[in-house]
């Protein structure tokens, strides 16, 4: 790699502003909107590891799809936009334009949530790699691919095998190998380890981290398990009911969580020697078809005030500490 290409990679800039994406679904003959991504904004520059954390059903996968520009007639972007600038080229996804598709896999790649079923069951792995190379107009060199597999700790002979002959962890590594084959600058990984055992999970997370550091790429890592984040991510975003409720450097959020929901999430992380009983968060998750007015967390929030039920708080900077944290909560106004 020449110096200039490294320079280009360090100037990656991802900027999401007021992203809004809804699903259209039919319920009992009536078309309903699932407000799965609401007013999401963040901004990352350079080679960073961003973790997006939230409970099941809060819209993480939807956000990942939107960030990847993978929208269709069912999921559409209602407002806001996301811009990628890779130094030399700009791409955007907005309600009216989606140029990001041109950058797919060469500049930005995606590890889907259902990675274990993401490989063609009737095609040998070598052919899958071959398809990928052919489709992107790069020569297929088996030696290079084998070296690449070595990097994700896979033996070269798996190229001769079918996906069903691999273990879950191996398949996950294959998907990661596919996602990194063309050296993209941005990688979005949606729960890449959720279906795996704890040891494999740790190995794969280490692998992802080392890829991000070595290739100086930007990672957007999505998980429901906040305890995975500390050794991994530089920044984290806490998602609740389609909104980002808190955003900031990982250390800052772990040492001084601001949003009541973040506090709940952190209180559920088990630590050795801790004898206190874990309290579940009271109430039930948001119904995204008919979310509560105002702050989406207020029905479950122990500090709820009148304004919380009336207006949704924006994600604003909080200077409570020396770090730049953003929180969407009326308590900090």
């Amino acid at each position, binding site marked *: 790699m020449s110096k200039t290409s490294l320079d280009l990679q360090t100037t990656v800039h991802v900027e999401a502003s007021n992203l809004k994406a809804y699903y259209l679904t039919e319920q009992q003959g009536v078309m309903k909107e699932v407000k799965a991504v609401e007013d999401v904004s963040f901004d990352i520059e350079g080679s960073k590891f961003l973790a997006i954390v939230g409970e099941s059903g809060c819209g993480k996968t939807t956000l990942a799809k939107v960030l990847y520009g993978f929208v269709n007639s069912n999921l559409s972007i209602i407002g806001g936009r996301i811009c990628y600038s890779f130094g030399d080229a700009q791409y955007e996804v907005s309600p009216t334009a989606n140029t990001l598709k041109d950058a797919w896999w060469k500049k930005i790649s*995606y590890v889907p949530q259902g990675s274990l079923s993401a490989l063609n069951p009737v095609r040998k792995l070598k052919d899958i790699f071959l*398809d*990928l190379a*052919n489709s992107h107009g790069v020569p297929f060199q088996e030696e290079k691919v084998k070296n690449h597999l070595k990097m994700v700790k896979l033996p070269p002979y798996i190229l001769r095998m079918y996906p069903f002959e691999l273990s879950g962890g191996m398949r996950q590594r294959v998907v990661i190998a596919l996602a990194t084959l063309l050296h993209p600058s941005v990688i979005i990984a949606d729960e890449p380890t959720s279906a795996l055992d704890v040891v494999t999970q740790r190995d794969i997370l280490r692998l992802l981290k080392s890829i991000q550091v070595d290739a100086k790429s930007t990672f957007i890592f999505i998980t429901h398990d906040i305890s995975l984040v500390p050794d991994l991510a530089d920044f984290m975003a806490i998602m609740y009911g389609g909104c980002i409720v808190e955003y900031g450097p990982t250390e800052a959020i772990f040492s001084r969580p601001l949003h009541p929901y973040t506090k709940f999430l952190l209180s559920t992380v088990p630590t050795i020697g801790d004898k206190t009983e874990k309290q579940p968060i009271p109430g039930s998750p948001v119904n995204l078809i008919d979310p509560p007015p105002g702050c989406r967390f207020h029905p479950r929030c122990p500090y709820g005030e009148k304004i919380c039920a009336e207006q949704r708080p924006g994600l604003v900077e909080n200077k409570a500490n020396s770090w730049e944290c953003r929180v969407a909560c009326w308590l900090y106004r």
Partner: protein
Amino acid sequence: MGGFLKFFIRYLGARLIVCFLVIFVGVTITFLIPRLIPGSNPAEIAVRRLQMAGAYLPPESVEPMREALLKLYGLEGSMIEQYFRYWRELLKGNLGPSFASFPTPVVVLISRSLPWTVGLLALTAVVSWVIGTLLGGVASYRGKRLWVRVFEMFSNAVRPIPYYIFALTLLIIFAYVLRWFPAGGAFQVGIVPSFSSTFVKSVIKHGFLPALSLIIIGMGAWFLNMRNLASGVTHEDFVIFAHQMKIKESTILKNYVMKTAMPAQLTGLALQLGTVFSGTIITEIVFNYPGLGTLAFTAIMQSDYNLIMGITLCSIVAVAFATLLVDLLLPFVDPRIQYTGGAG
């Protein structure tokens, strides 16, 4: 590779045993059924026919006559004796004489009709399968194109029409009204079968309408089948992921969507080839085509046991070998099925 051969031979052996078992059971059942239906004994029928024609038969001569007929037809002795005799003759390739066209051997009758049926049905089955499968696969992928919608509407419109009505309509329009094609037969009467161009042209002209009727119906069915199979596949995770990887559309269609739907579709084809004989009766009657279907029809009408059994035997052997073919082919199109038995 040696290991593979060993597994393959073991696999083949097991399938062959099943295949022969199916044939054995089938033959036994078809041996029993006509003999268990009361009043269908051909010797009785022949005697009755004589009596009905007004011939006076003294009662003491009826019995020897019946016995002579039974012997002639190979129906004397107990059921068990007949059964063993049947197998012995069968293994010698002798299916006995036809009762209705006595003394022509059944084998001769069948070998006269078989080529027409096999030619017509195997050809139309393969042609309609290939076209229907290709179009169905592409349609699952490009569902909104105009030609797809037109073709789909056409297939759905043809489907509920009973085949014989459809076939008769074709016959009336093209053979009687427009007079483009002959109304029956397999070739012009008077031409001697040979490889001359007149003969071949005549065969094509006579076979065109029955083939067209079978291809239109078959193609529509295969089209809808493949489209449903393949559009199920287009929603699978690995196809979505292939799109996200920006794999070329043509590669996705060919190697991701159609290839995955192929095992089920291919099974359908092989099984259909097995039913070639039973599926042909209506076609051959409507178009007056001298194949196995017409032969079977007359055999049933005339209680011609030996001929019925001979035709059924063909059918059983065909189905059994079609199933064997599926078993041998599937591991090639679907790597998850292996000759070793299990996957992995």
